[in-house]
């Protein structure tokens, strides 16, 4: 059996350069891998929560919403002073959102630093109000304000009528709830769970004397 060999006079230069560059690339990647531990952005547990953008109604006016301001990257697990975030993706015309609105408002009052009977961290409640593509679900900022007032909620409602946040978060339907750690990492998602938000707060947040 005869093999066919080809002579490449430049193989030495090419091979040596390729080896040098590949080694350099490998070393750089290893240094990055060993010194950084990037966290993916996403809506699964353990991922960093995507941004929530838009105007928010705070009870008096619609103001620019700054989701990042709710988080402290230096928070460490077990630290009771960090503030958690609970966010509900909802539609004011969704019957189940209406049914659970009272309960959501009660939880906002219960898991608050203002409640002396709660020995855990303050949980900031938020609602992102969208308009589902279903006939009869047309909404407006006025309707969102009325909904908030009707259920006596005192937390911000974010205008997501254009569904931007809903799409960014991949929300399959309303209502969908998330519980987010003080460092912005998602701790619990209602879609993956048999427990409700209240049970998740009690189970996951650090509490004094626990």
């Amino acid at each position, binding site marked *: 059996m005869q093999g066919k060999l080809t002579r490449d*006079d*430049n193989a*030495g*230069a*090419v091979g*040596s*350069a*390729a080896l*040098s*560059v590949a080694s*350099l*690339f490998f070393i*750089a990647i290893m*240094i*990055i891998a060993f*010194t*950084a*531990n*990037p*966290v*993916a*952005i996403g809506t699964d547990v353990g991922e*960093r929560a*995507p*941004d929530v953008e838009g105007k928010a109604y705070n009870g008096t006016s619609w103001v620019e919403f700054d989701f990042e301001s709710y988080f402290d*990257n*230096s928070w460490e697990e077990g630290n009771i002073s960090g503030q958690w975030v609970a966010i509900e993706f909802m539609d004011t015309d969704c019957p189940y959102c209406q049914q659970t609105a009272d309960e959501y408002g009660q939880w906002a009052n219960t898991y608050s630093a203002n409640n002396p009977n709660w020995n855990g961290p303050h949980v900031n409640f938020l609602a992102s109000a969208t308009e589902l593509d279903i006939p009869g679900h047309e909404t407006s900022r006025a309707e969102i304000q009325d909904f908030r007032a009707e259920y006596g909620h005192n937390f911000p409602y974010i205008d997501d009528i254009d569904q931007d946040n809903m799409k960014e978060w991949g929300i399959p339907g309303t209502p969908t709830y998330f519980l987010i750690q003080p*460092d*912005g990492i998602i701790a619990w998602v209602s879609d993956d769970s048999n427990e409700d938000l209240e049970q998740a707060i009690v189970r996951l947040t650090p509490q004094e004397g626990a």
Partner: protein
Amino acid sequence: MLDNLLVAAYLLPTLFGLLLVTPFGKSAGDSLAGRFEILSTERGRITAGLQMIVFFGFAVSAQTFWISSKISEGGNFCTSSSVFSCDDLLGNNDLNVDPLFGLSWGMLGMMTFAFLLFMVLVIKNEPDGEYTERFITFGTLITGVGILVILLLVSYEIQESKICLYCTTAHIANVAALIGFLRLRKLYDDKSAWKGKSN
């Protein structure tokens, strides 16, 4: 403050490489030729300058990729309320990846400069080899396309009203490498100058 000093560690060698690839680098090359023989010819000066430029372009790209990774981890590196805040750009999840494949700009920079470095090393070690002309053309094309990418990234900086000094250093390295490849092309077309032992 420390992060600005670190930028200088990438920027100064890149600028020195740029000096070497331009005609203004002749006197600097001549003064160093006794120690580094390669600098005694114009071709040697340009390839040495290019090697320096693309190596530090690679290094600063790796640094931006590392900064992006640290920010996603929850840390910060060069946060500043001034216009020079790379964290605001490298930590922006909408802007720190390319719009086609979602790859980090830092990683793309690393791959591009690594390939450029490979080509420069081949040209430097085998200047009369069969790959030389092809690699000079590739290098010119890649760094030329890089100019379009730089324009896109600068538009992000204008949009955010922030400047990322690490990214700017990588952009300078790309422009300097383009100048180097164009100078190399000109020299290669003049066969006598390309083969010249000294100038």
